[in-house]
């Protein structure tokens, strides 16, 4: 296990907890009709986003998916700006024009969530070309789900990254489902890592519920990619605590599946148990983070609710820079 100091551990916990509370709160806000549209929550998968992004600086790039809030927060996007965006407010991160599935923050190297399954990986390949040409040791990470690994664009991206030996890292989060279909049905090989290997890159399968497993695997991936050896893939097995989208009745899941997972596979619980067991961090310290995070989320919701919607004049701005 990598040696992380207390600050790093508390930071990782804070980011995971922020994602969790952000999503749990969104779930309520959506139930209460506060938020329009199509929202996919990341609760349950936090260890993946944070385990990966805790290695990255603002000038490393990530591209994300329809289930992108976790990646955004892990990469350092402003939580209040995100909440406002999801609320569709004028001062949201994307002026309310993007919404939950289209959050980006270029100052943070977050090149955008993406509502097209498989839309992101080709973009990451391009960002990795920029990394390679700059020669500054930076990398580009493409997040994707288990379902995305059946989309042709993703395969093309992986092959091209190998051909061009790019510093691109493909992170597949296997949360067991693509929408209402189980991964064992839709992924013919029943194994994503070996598929990636078939494209000529090393791949590891890790327990995505365990922050440390992800964090360590990502360290190996980075060593490979930053060392000029080309792309690397991670398959992170995890679970989602909510439906595919908000409103999903989840008939495809056993009645107690989520409950069981919340009990036994909660990455926050696992993290807490690990770091308190060996005394690196105390429960009190973690509880203090919890309090902070809840306050931040409360502030985010309050500010989002108080923010104005975009002015109708914004309808046709930002289509072009000049036209």
């Amino acid at each position, binding site marked *: 296990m990598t040696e992380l100091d207390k600050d790093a551990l508390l930071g990782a916990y804070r980011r995971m907890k922020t994602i969790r509370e952000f999503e749990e709160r969104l779930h309520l806000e959506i139930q209460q009709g506060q938020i*329009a*549209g*199509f929202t996919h929550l990341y609760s349950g998968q936090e260890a993946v986003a944070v385990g990966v992004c805790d290695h990255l600086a603002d000038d490393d790039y990530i591209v994300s998916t329809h289930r992108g809030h976790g990646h955004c927060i892990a990469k350092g996007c402003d939580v209040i700006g995100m909440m406002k965006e999801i609320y*569709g*407010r*004028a001062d949201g991160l994307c002026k*309310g*024009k*993007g*919404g*939950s*599935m*289209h959050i980006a923050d270029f100052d943070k190297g977050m090149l955008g969530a*993406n*509502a*097209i*399954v*498989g*839309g992101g990986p080709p973009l990451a390949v391009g960002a990795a070309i920029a990394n390679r040409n700059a020669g500054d040791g930076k990398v580009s990470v493409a997040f994707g789900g288990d*379902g*995305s690994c*059946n*989309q*042709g*664009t993703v395969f093309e991206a992986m092959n091209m990254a190998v051909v061009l030996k790019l510093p691109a890292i493909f992170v597949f989060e296997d949360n*067991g*489902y*693509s*929408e*209402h*279909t*189980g*991964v*064992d*049905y*839709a*992924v*013919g090989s029943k194994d994503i890592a070996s598929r990636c290997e078939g494209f000529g890159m090393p791949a590891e399968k890790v327990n995505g519920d365990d922050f440390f497993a992800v964090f360590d695997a990502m360290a190996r991936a980075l060593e490979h990619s930053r060392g000029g050896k080309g792309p690397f893939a991670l398959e992170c097995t995890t679970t989602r605590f909510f439906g595919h989208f908000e409103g999903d009745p989840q*008939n*495809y*899941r*056993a*009645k107690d*599946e989520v409950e069981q997972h919340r009990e036994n596979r909660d990455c926050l619980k696992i993290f807490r148990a690990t770091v308190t067991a060996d005394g690196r961090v105390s429960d009190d310290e973690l509880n203090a983070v919890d309090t902070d995070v809840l306050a931040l989320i409360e502030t985010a919701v309050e500010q989002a609710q108080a923010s104005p*919607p*975009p002015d*109708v004049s*914004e*309808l*046709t701005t930002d*289509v072009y820079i000049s036209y």
Partner: protein
Amino acid sequence: MAVTTFRQALNDAMFEEMRRDERVIILGEDVSGGAGGTSGERDASGGIFGVSKGLIFEFGENRVIDTPISESAIIGAGAGAALAGLRPISEIMFADFVGVCMDQIYNQAAKFRYMFGGKTKCPLVIRTAMGAGMNMGAQHSQTIYPILTGVPGLKIAVPSNAADAKGLLKTAIRDDDPVVFFEHKALYNRKCEVPDGEHLVEFGEAAMPREGDDCTVVAIGRMVVFAEKAIDGLKEAGISCDLIDPRTVSPLDTETIFESLEHTGRLVIVDESPPRCSVASDIAGIVASEAFGSLRAPIKLVTAPHAPVPFARELERAYMPGPGDIAKAIQEVVND
């Protein structure tokens, strides 16, 4: 006549046609749903909008096929199965996703018959959900039909109500040419009377849900609903309109439009798409070249702006043409 939702009408159409002809199959993501899930429950979705609900129980897994997220393979498999004698319905969950499978639609299915000298046919139906109004953002809210209407070899249906949805889908399934069938998401829950028994609507025959003298209004898909509202609201002001719902934009029933124009002389066209190379501007172009003599005023196009679909409610509302925009256009044209 039973009052039925647009969703139910489509579901009925598929049940009827799949019973009638065992060559009809449906494939797509979660068209049944639940495969590989821990509950063991199939038909966990029945299509993400519930349109194909229940089919799997009657027709089984060989004919109701859940697929991975692989739209090129969904369309390609449909087209290939069509060449091999089946009559597939390939579902693309959101019309916006045709971008990942466009080749199979416009270079393959659309062109087989021509390229192969008339020696085959490709009876494929592509069903897909389109349109704005649900705050789904720029990649889940487009109309898309304009980019397929121009493709020779394809037929394009855009129903505006449950009865037409049923009749057009049944016709599409029986049609020997490839058909792309656009279902506006905001219509799924709308109800209307649907004729009992066998109900087929011919392609290339417009409907005229309103008749009048002052102006011809052509509206497509959900815009028909808004145009009806606008037109009904103008009665008080003493304005009456022919409202033409083309139902299929390819083939397009230009005759009905031209005939109407002969007595109204004025034309408003309503399309939820951005304006350039839209079906609205296309119809305007056709009229300006083939029925110019009937026009007594400039044609008015009521469309979305040249912009992607925005997320925020307020912006999306402004994006879509509404009854007010249509009424205003009619008044302007009539007073021109």
